[in-house]
């Protein structure tokens, strides 16, 4: 009897705990971004002014790049955040169909793992707290936001390349017969660093990783990788 009561109590406790645990995981990332950016801009506002005026109240000319970054962030913080949100939403939508052919999500564990890794990376790129941790000026904040947006845009492309390569690797070796060497090399390409500060650099980075995938495929068909 005691044992039954304990089991029931444990079950109820589990039921009660489950929604609480789920609720604890829910985070308003947009609000976190907004709060973080506001704090960061507030923190930098004084140091930037100090820097440009050398601590004196005199009409020193402000360097244009700093002035632009400063003005943009002070007056258009919300606008920049909304663009950041749009980039995230667009990348997330494209990540649902990274190959752009309406195909369903892959049903094998490796591809599923890769998609999860890239989804996590997308969220990581979205969080300004990570992107702006080192920013010491308004200009660096603005550049950091730009880099984060480019990183988010790269995620669906990386997913498309990874899934395409995996499809052909599986076709060559058979579903269960992909050698570990091939698998690990493929996985290392999925985790390739895409740090880019402008669209041209992003394009170059995608080209570099695409060339690596091509070399992997060449090695796969010629037996150059085990």
């Amino acid at each position: 009897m005691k044992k039954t009561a304990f089991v029931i109590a444990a079950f109820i406790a589990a039921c009660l705990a489950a929604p609480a645990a789920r609720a604890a995981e829910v985070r308003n990332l947009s609000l976190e971004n907004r709060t973080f950016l506001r704090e960061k801009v507030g923190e930098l506002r004084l140091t930037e002014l100090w820097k440009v005026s050398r601590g004196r109240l005199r009409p020193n000319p402000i360097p244009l790049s700093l002035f632009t970054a400063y003005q943009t962030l002070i007056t258009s913080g919300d606008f920049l955040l909304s663009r950041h949100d749009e980039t995230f939403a667009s990348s997330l939508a494209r990540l649902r169909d990274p190959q752009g052919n309406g195909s369903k999500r892959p049903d094998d564990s490796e591809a599923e793992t890769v998609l999860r890794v890239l989804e996590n990376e997308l969220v990581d790129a979205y969080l300004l707290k990570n992107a702006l941790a080192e920013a010491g000026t308004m200009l660096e904040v603005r550049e950091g936001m730009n880099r984060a947006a480019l990183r988010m845009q790269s995620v669906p492309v990386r997913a498309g390349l990874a899934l395409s390569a995996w499809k052909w690797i599986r076709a060559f070796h058979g579903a269960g017969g992909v050698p570990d060497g091939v698998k690990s090399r493929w996985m290392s390409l999925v985790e390739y660093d895409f740090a880019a500060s402008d669209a041209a650099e992003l394009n170059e980075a995608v080209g570099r990783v695409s060339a690596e995938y091509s070399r992997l495929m060449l090695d796969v068909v010629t037996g150059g990788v085990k």
Partner: protein
Amino acid sequence: MRKALVTAAAMLLFSSLCAADEMGITVRAADGAALIAGEEESVRAVEAALNASAKKKWFLREIEAFITAEHGDRVKIRLYSKLEFERVGMFRFLRMPLRRAVLRGDVPPIEFLSFEQARAVLEGFDIGTAAREDFEKLTDEQKVGAAALAGAALVVLGGTGPDSPVEIVYVAER
């Protein structure tokens, strides 16, 4: 239609599909045409054997049986009935930039490889490769034949850059 015969040993422009010592010929039959490709020596032997045969009227299946019996696996054969040969629409074409084709998974990743390397990758998957400038010189019939002989599909490459045009020709199975 002349009876059994190799009316045109039209050398298809397989230079882009085959290695330097390979060739292909079109053999016409009463009910269509057969495309035969392989090493030059083997293909010429097939051609000579067909020409030397006393048989007056060949059908596609007879040609296939004859060649298979005489030459086994040394040559590749594809058969086209008249109906199919005329219906080029049954071949599905996809045209897009290479990056898009790779992302869609229509071709394996081959960006930035040399043409020969790209050909090696594609052949690993039983996909034929042709250079765009060579392929565009072919007649429609030759294009159909080239695609049919290519394997699972024929990829016509305009280069291996991300924006290079690529054409993927799928052949419907008979």
